[in-house]
């Protein structure tokens, strides 16, 4: 369980990125964090594992106050928090396997990671995760040889390799096409459901958020302006978060995309059966 209480972040420049943000994520819940760019979504997610130092407030993960930890303790806390990044953030010149294994860095001593001699169960786990995200054939390829969707799958495997108790997901679909975006979102949500993993997914695409998240938190200029089930996102709420926009048209377009994709899937199934 993650508890964020009165979190405030003021950057050195004086920009106030977050103001009094409070919420609780129970086990197994997938939270979609929406808001226009500059609303502080990315800062909020990074305050949770302290890639960005919060100015005030507390973040507690299962009764551990992350904001008070010193460097060594913070590292041990970080390994329990998996993170999936915008633009994948894989180490491009390492192999897929090394990227997945890098999720174990917090658990192994330096000499093991330096010589790439990870414990057997870590390696088996990495192979299983690669299988789970559908990339078992690509383990020895270099990360920069993969396509966007494949790279994000490696990113997911890396985060899961950490045995996380919480998943932080930062704009996972930012550079993917609509179809791959949905596949990636579906994969993340499925995995969270399978293991009761709580997740905060920071996403600018409202329609995707509604489709996949149990709960939506809307940020606007660093403040929580909406917190409720996805069905509660009415036109008025969205307008409050994003300003005027033709929401109906956007939803329709997305629904058409989805329908087309479903149709394709059916077609493919039919063909498979025919064969």
């Amino acid at each position, binding site marked *: 369980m993650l508890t964020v209480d009165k979190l405030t972040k003021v950057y050195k420049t004086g920009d106030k990125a977050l103001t009094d943000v409070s919420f609780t994520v129970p086990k197994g819940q997938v939270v979609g964090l929406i808001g226009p760019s500059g609303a502080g979504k990315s800062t909020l997610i990074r305050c949770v594992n302290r890639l960005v130092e919060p100015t005030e407030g507390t973040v507690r993960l299962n009764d551990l106050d992350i904001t008070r930890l010193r460097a060594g303790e913070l590292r041990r806390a970080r390994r329990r928090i998996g993170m999936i990044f915008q633009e994948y953030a894989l180490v491009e010149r390492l*192999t897929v*396997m*090394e990227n997945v*294994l890098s999720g174990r860095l917090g658990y192994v001593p330096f000499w093991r990671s330096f010589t*790439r001699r*990870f414990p*057997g*169960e870590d*390696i*088996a*786990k*990495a*192979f*299983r*995760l690669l*299988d*789970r995200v559908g990339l078992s054939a690509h*383990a*020895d390829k*270099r990360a920069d040889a993969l396509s966007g969707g494949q790279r994000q799958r490696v990113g997911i495997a890396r985060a*899961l390799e950490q*045995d996380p108790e919480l998943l932080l997901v930062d704009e996972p679909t930012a550079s993917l096409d609509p179809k791959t975006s949905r596949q990636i979102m579906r994969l993340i949500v*499925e*995995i969270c*459901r*399978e*293991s*009761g993993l709580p997740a905060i997914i920071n996403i600018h695409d409202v329609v995707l958020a509604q489709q996949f998240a149990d709960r939506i938190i809307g940020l606007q200029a660093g403040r929580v302006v909406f917190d409720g089930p996805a069905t509660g996102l009415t036109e008025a709420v969205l307008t409050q978060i994003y300003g005027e926009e033709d929401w109906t048209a956007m939803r329709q377009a997305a629904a058409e995309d989805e329908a087309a994709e479903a149709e394709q899937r059916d077609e493919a199934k039919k063909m498979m059966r025919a064969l």
Partner: protein
Amino acid sequence: MTDTAAPVSPGVSPGPYPTRWKRPPQMIKSRFWRYALAIGALVWLVLALGTIEVNWQRVMVGMERGQRFIAGFLQPDFTTRWRDISTGLIESLTMTLTSTVVGVLISIPIGIGAARNVAPGWIYAICRGIIAVSRALQEIIVAIFFVALFGFGAFAGFLTLTFATIGFIGKLLAEDIEDIDESQAEAIRATGASWFQLINYAIQPQVMPRLIGLSLYRLDINFRESAVIGIVGAGGIGATLNTALNRYEYDSAGAVLLIIIAIVMISEYSSGYLRRWVQ
């Protein structure tokens, strides 16, 4: 939910997946060549280290000198030899500036001639030849010849640096011209412009900032080189340094070195600043 996937939860048994993984070799795929290269490198290292002959007695004597040099470097003496130092410095600085200006002026036509997209074949061959010769010959070797021909002093140094500048600027300028945006050149050609107008309107605006940047960079290099070619008699601060070291006057040598470092630092920062301002 998919039923094919194994449940993902912490601490699950490894299952049928492999527990060993080795990073595949990245550069040299063949095992034979990897070992052959490693052994070859080792053999070479042993042989090469074996050729080093150290006369420890000489080193012991030298250590004392080294200490004196470090002391001289920490407590440089600018005053005793100030006349020599200032003459050498002025020679170096004037040599640097004049050789860069003349070198750049000569290298512009050569650079244009060595660009495949604007020069006819035979001119291209000649200009590339000039550049290759200038680049292949060491400054020091060129300086030796110019000193032999023109006598000791700054003029030989000036010619050396000019010659080296031609190769450096000529090559980079030619590459820049070859890299220009062809569509702009095409647009100018389409207006019926002559060859000179083409150079003036399509090439010059695109390469001018780079040319100024390169010239400033070369100014920097020429100063550093001017400190070296003095050793073989081509004037400048290198001659002063050489004299000081030959007389074992390490405090004066330390002063010269500090001046060289200071000027290089200043010129590097200011030329970096100027280049940013120009571009």
